[in-house]
């Protein structure tokens, strides 16, 4: 049975047969890097492994898609995570209005900061169930038994969390703009670019740390403790580039955008390299 055919259920992932990722002698990361190199430069043994890995790569994408579909279905059955996230971030935004006088000039100065802090707090709470939920019925073991790479599991969850977070932001940003007298006219696309880069970094690190904290006691408290200090560079970069957009003359700050992209790349690469250890039993 091919994966990605017909209706995929949660059980397809571990019911289907396929090639074990452990079949190859060298680490799959090296093989995937070899994919970027012309065929001529690669030794024959590595080339065979690479060609086999190509099949696996295809299934990595498919498997991530299946995990994503499972996460989305699980969430949209109840929508409780999304609702709670949006309401929580809204509460934070409302509470901040007591910390300073939200006139247009003040909002321009403090708004981007509090918007991102609301996102970070909401994210560090929302990402918690991502792996903790799998603990209840030991479903993570079932996922691990499936003949898919562990990065596929992680990637599926990252993508799902990215979608949840983006949906929450889609609701929150307009509400925020209305409450704090900020105008979104003319900067929507640039703002979306900043939001996407920032949210991606948040969800990548957050999902990885959700897998880390899932094994610990007091995980609800631990995840923000692990995540928030790590995200300070992201917070600075996101706030600065959002501030540049909300300024009198909106501008896209290239330095900070590049920084955000760099942050995303560094931690996505790190989680790709470490995902085998992260999800190992």
């Amino acid at each position: 049975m091919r994966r990605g055919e017909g209706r995929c259920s949660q059980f397809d992932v571990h019911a289907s047969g396929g090639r074990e990722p452990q079949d190859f002698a060298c680490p799959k990361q090296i093989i995937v890097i070899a994919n970027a190199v012309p065929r001529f430069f690669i030794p024959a043994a590595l080339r065979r492994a690479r060609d086999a890995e190509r099949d696996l790569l295809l299934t990595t994408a498919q498997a991530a898609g299946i995990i994503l579909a499972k996460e989305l279905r699980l969430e949209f059955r109840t929508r409780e995570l999304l609702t709670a996230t949006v309401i929580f971030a809204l509460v934070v935004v409302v509470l901040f209005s007591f910390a300073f006088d939200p006139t247009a000039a003040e909002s321009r100065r403090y708004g981007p900061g509090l918007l991102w802090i609301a996102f970070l707090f909401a994210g560090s709470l929302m990402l918690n169930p991502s792996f903790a939920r799998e603990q209840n019925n030991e479903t993570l073991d079932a996922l691990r038994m499936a003949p898919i790479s562990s990065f596929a599991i992680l990637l599926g969850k990252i993508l799902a969390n990215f979608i949840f977070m983006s949906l929450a932001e889609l609701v929150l940003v307009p509400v925020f703009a209305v409450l704090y007298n900020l105008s979104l006219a003319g900067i929507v696309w640039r703002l979306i670019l900043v939001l996407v880069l920032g949210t991606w970094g948040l969800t990548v690190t957050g999902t990885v740390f959700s897998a880390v904290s899932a094994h610990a006691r007091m995980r609800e408290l631990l995840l923000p403790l692990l995540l928030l200090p790590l995200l300070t560079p992201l917070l600075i970069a996101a706030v600065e580039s959002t501030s540049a957009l909300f300024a009198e003359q909106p501008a896209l700050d290239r330095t900070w955008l590049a920084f955000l992209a760099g942050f995303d790349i560094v931690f996505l690469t790190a989680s790709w390299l470490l995902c085998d250890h992260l999800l190992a039993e």
Partner: protein
Amino acid sequence: MKARLTITALVALLIFCAGYAALFIAPDEATMHAIQRIFYFHVACWNAMFCAFFVAFYASVAYLVTGKRKWDALGVSGVEVGVICCTIGLVTGPLWARPVWGIWWTWDAKLTSTFILWLLFIAYLLLRGLIEDPEKKASLSAIFAIFASLDIPLVYLANRLWRTQHPQPVIAGGQGSGLDPTMSKVLLLCLFAVFCVMILVLIDRYRLEQLRNECAELKFEIESQGIDAFDGAATPALQKGGQ
């Protein structure tokens, strides 16, 4: 055992000499006078901290590659010693800054980055305390240490970029240009002495961690045997990796 005692005594003598040199031999600083003498240990602590965190980073990578428990023990020792050095640095810094800058703390790039560094590795120690399973504890904390180490250059870069756009008037930079030759000799001595102390503490902490691991394993073995003999391994009440 005798060799270790000798080495410990030697390092104690070294750090005593370094303290004497910093307090009495180094010349008086032109504007800051006596308060500047904290600089010899402040800088030395940061130096030792970076070495300790580098050891922790290296050991974390090595643990994930080899899977040997000794690397995990070295990793946690590196982080603990590094956190102590960082704490000393963060305490001596404000002590110096209050009379010289007039403020205890400022959100300068270096200060902010080290504070975040401290928070990150405190979180590492917390994480270790909250995971029961020893295998999981080792691999997950190694992953966290690698992420934290990757984050540090980014934190520094971000604060650097940020502060150049919003310069702080309070800060005129460090000592920077040109130390007196005696001063730099004393500084070198202090750097070396504190580095030796750090290495000594690191090695002792590493031994302690290995002894703890051994002790936990033995306890686990005794417990499982006792239960086996008692009621035929029917009770799954084993606490894996006890205290």
